[in-house]
């Protein structure tokens, strides 16, 4: 009876057997989830972050260094229930912090390490390491924070901070983990790939208690960390720090360039901040405070703030006028200008016009330039002339990026026919409508770097080299990788530059820029006043020295300083002297500059910018 019931029974048990084998096949062969190294809780991926590259000045002095610390990470999957009270006491944190960090970590990934607590000093680390056996799922990784032995140049150096969410999500290959540091501004951002080095990783075996049991597969997948490359810069810390002193209580910026190389000797943005504020655990708090400061100390003015070049732009007009053949050094241009003369004889010839910064003279020069076709010498309409003139001033670095090794460099603005067509209508404007651009006012937007680069063009008598802060990157100053640069020529004959330079020399010898004189050195310069609708004008001075074989070109802007010759030229003079001679013997003079105030810093006045 019922012998046949053996078959439904066998079918039933074989069905179960088949389901189980399929399930096992799925777990062991099809589904990859359990075979990744991440999934194995007996294997822990330990990342070793190498020391970040340091930054040196041109004489090998440290600008940015590292302090070694330890960061604690958590892998939520591997955490076992633990005694929160003693844990909090050990690390001096509170329970809400623990809960929120654990929740965040779980949210990110159950299997991967998330930052839990940042920057324990070596001393704190040795105090807790023995107790860690009670807290599986937590581990330490060596890390560092930035220190600034010279305490200067915060804006150009930039800072590192936790990788922003968007950048974290958009990285192509997964390199940064959540909470990892990355360069966020300045050189730290621009040279991130050099500075960060190459991370090492080790697959460590651990047991369920979290004890290290050696390397996974004899370390076959382990890689060693490679230390980050140092940045060897052209910066002269002496000049840089002197600039910091001279700009005390002032708003403005300074850039000094070595004309022969394009190397940046000093780059200051004022008011600045203590770079140490943005290093370490206090970053979020300090960063928020700095963003709220109305003087915007985080703004790197030399590459981002816009000014009108003012009278310094007359040098460019002079060089182009000479190059185009519309004037010679002896050309006298008087009358027929809406500008009035400041002093007698200023329109007598080019050198006098430069020395006395004549407005009527350069009004006439630009009128000639814009109505002249340099190839044929025939008269052309102003919009066509302006197109040709734009090409020329762009070769001086205006209206384009110079290619400096910093993020967020602005192109700036130059007057263009398209712009005037838009404002006044096509063919609805003529030279007399826009004549103020002849003296560097009107539709310009120029940052201090471009002004310094202009000084460099005159120092080089007609060309400039890509300005750059970093000379080479590497682990050794002599065996590094040099920063690539380019030469840009103005295509104006060298002798015309010699003529303009003679005018610049006269500016300092007996003209508006006498405050920049250095004993025993021929200084060439030009003052400027950048009109400012919202307050006192900004004072500009550009210069280079010595006249023959120049070593330094500089641009100084003091906001609300009114006269370039009074507010900016003395600063430029002292800085150049410091660079050329290694020191200056004018302490009293320095003190008086330091104590001069033109505006109330941190008092509600923000840097002026030309609005587009």
């Amino acid at each position: 009876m019922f012998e046949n019931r053996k078959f439904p029974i066998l079918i039933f048990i074989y069905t179960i057997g088949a389901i189980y084998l399929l399930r096992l096949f799925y777990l062991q062969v099809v589904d990859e989830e359990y075979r990744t190294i991440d999934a194995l809780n007996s294997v822990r991926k330990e990342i070793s972050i190498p020391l970040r590259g340091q930054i040196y000045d041109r004489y090998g002095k440290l600008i940015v260094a590292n302090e070694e610390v330890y960061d604690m990470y958590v892998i939520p999957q591997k955490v076992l229930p633990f005694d929160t009270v003693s844990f909090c006491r050990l690390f001096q944190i509170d329970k809400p912090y623990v809960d929120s960090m654990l929740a965040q970590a779980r949210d990110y990934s159950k299997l991967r390490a998330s930052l839990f607590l940042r920057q324990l000093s070596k001393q704190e680390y040795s105090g807790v390491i023995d107790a860690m056996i009670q807290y599986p799922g937590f581990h330490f990784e060596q890390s560092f924070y930035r220190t600034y032995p010279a305490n200067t140049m915060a804006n150009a150096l930039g800072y590192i901070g936790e990788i922003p969410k968007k950048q974290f999500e958009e990285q192509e290959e997964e390199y940064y983990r959540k909470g990892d540091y990355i360069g966020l501004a300045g050189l730290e951002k621009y040279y991130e790939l050099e500075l960060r080095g190459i991370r090492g990783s080790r697959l460590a075996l651990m047991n369920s208690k979290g004890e290290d049991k050696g390397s996974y597969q004899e370390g076959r997948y382990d890689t060693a960390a490679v230390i980050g490359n140092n940045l060897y810069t052209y910066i002269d810390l002496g000049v840089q720090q002197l600039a910091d002193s001279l700009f005390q209580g002032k708003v403005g910026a300074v850039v000094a360039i070595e004309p022969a190389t394009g190397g940046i000797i000093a780059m200051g943005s004022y008011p600045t901040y203590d770079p140490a504020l943005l290093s370490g655990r206090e970053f979020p708090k300090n960063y928020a405070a700095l963003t709220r400061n109305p003087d915007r100390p985080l703004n790197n003015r030399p590459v981002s703030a816009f000014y009108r070049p003012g009278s310094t732009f007359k040098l460019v007009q002079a060089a182009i006028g000479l190059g185009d053949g519309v004037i010679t050094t002896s050309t006298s241009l008087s009358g027929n200008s809406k500008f009035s003369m400041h002093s007698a004889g200023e329109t007598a010839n080019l050198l006098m016009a430069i020395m006395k910064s004549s407005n009527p003279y350069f009004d006439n020069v630009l009128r000639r330039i814009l109505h002249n076709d340099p190839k044929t010498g025939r008269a052309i309409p102003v919009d066509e002339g302006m197109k040709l003139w734009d090409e020329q001033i762009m070769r001086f670095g205006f209206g384009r990026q110079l290619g400096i090794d910093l993020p967020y460099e602005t192109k700036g603005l130059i007057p263009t026919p398209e712009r005037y067509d838009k404002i006044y209508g096509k063919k609805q404007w003529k030279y007399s409508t826009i004549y103020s651009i002849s003296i560097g006012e009107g539709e310009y937007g120029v940052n201090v770097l471009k002004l310094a680069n202009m000084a460099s063009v005159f120092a080089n008598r007609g060309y400039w080299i890509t300005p750059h802060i970093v000379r080479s990157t590497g682990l050794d100053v002599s065996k590094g990788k040099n920063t690539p640069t380019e030469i840009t020529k103005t295509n104006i004959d060298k002798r015309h530059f010699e003529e303009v330079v003679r005018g610049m020399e006269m500016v300092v010898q007996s003209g508006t820029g006498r405050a920049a004189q250095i004993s025993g050195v021929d200084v060439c310069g030009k003052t400027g006043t950048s009109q400012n609708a919202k307050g006192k004008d900004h004072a500009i001075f550009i210069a280079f020295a010595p006249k023959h074989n120049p070593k330094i070109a500089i641009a100084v802007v003091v906001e609300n300083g009114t006269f370039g010759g009074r507010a900016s030229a003395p600063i430029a003079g002292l800085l150049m002297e410091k660079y050329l001679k290694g020191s200056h013997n004018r302490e009293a003079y320095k003190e008086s500059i330091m104590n001069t105030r033109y505006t109330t810093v941190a008092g509600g006045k923000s840097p002026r910018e030309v609005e587009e």
Partner: protein
Amino acid sequence: MAREIDIKKGLDWTTVWIYIILLMIGLANIYAAVYNVDNPKPIYSLDHNAGKQIMFMVLAFVLIMIILFIDYKVYDTFAYIFYGVWMLVLVLTIFIAPDIKGSHSWLRFGGFQFQPAELAKTITLLALAKYLSTQGVTMSKFNNLVKACMIIFLPPVIIILQKETGSALAFAAFIIILYREGLPGVYPALFLAFVALFVLGLVFEDQLWIVILGLALLAVLFWYLFLKRYERNRQNMQRVIGLFILFSAFVLAVDFAFNNVFAPHQQNRIRVLVNPDVDPLGAGWNIRNSKLAIGSGGFLGKGYLQGTQTKFDFVPEQSTDFIFCTVGEEWGFLGVFVVIGLYFILITRIYNLAEKQKFKFARIYGYGVASILFFHLLINIGMTIGLIPIIGIPLPFMSYGGSSLLSFTILLFIFLKLDAHRSYKV
């Protein structure tokens, strides 16, 4: 000595060899599970479970000898007495056994301890076989069915009182015997339907209406597609509606019972099957690590003693209830295929041998042996791969443990002894 020669001839050596092979595979994996990288000890060391298992194997061999030499009629004759005595032992155990993690199921004799619940399956099987083989007893008589069920259900009730729920579940295996002996097919069908509904109720815990809607749809489909026109009468209509109400009530009752009768940790053990994130550090941790160990083995496994999850103690109870994880991690899919294959060959062979028995007692007993082995396999392996809640039940012949090894050995070899004598007259 004539008798001894008979035994050698009559013994089913295929079964014996599979038994030995499973024992050896088990031992090798117990050694891997307890292997300590920092302080490796030889397999025979009595400091760890592998060495103790060897000792239990020696004991098992002695027991086999005794079983093979005792007259085979003893089991039939004394089945009820064994049953009665053992029920007493089970009840006594509740009172004299020490509390081990809340359960009172282990008896201690000096340095040894023994779990009577393990042997209860064999003894119940003997009693059931005797009852069902009694002249005139048939499954078609409701009275007989009730008596058979009482024999089956008494021991698990006592075992549940010992708080050893896992062992009690294995008694579900007896439904296969009842079916084979004539229990109407509708009972196991209903049983399976309820299991399916239970799982569905769990999956759609918050949307039970989906399950009920599904049942209604099934009833309508059945009415129109499976019943012929002339069968769609009033009586059948009542039956279909009755079944629908029965199933729906079951789903609702299970949901209610699940949330109100089970303790939260028991609820979680079941919920993690559907969603491993329910209890990540408790039941979820065990399932996750068990699946991880097996899954990380891949097709060929990591190699003997190379399983990192195994070596570093991530899987709980790895030498006993979770021994299958070691096989999965170190021997891969190939390893588990071989092990499951061996079990299925063994079980099929026992069913086939059982069918060949001339005597009802031996046949029923054989069916019981195969079914009990199968249910252990079903629950134990199902639990390690996350298909069944975590229930503490050993893998026959492979898990570490004297009680289970000796009990399974007795279970199997009584059948082999009966089988060896199948050609003799009583």
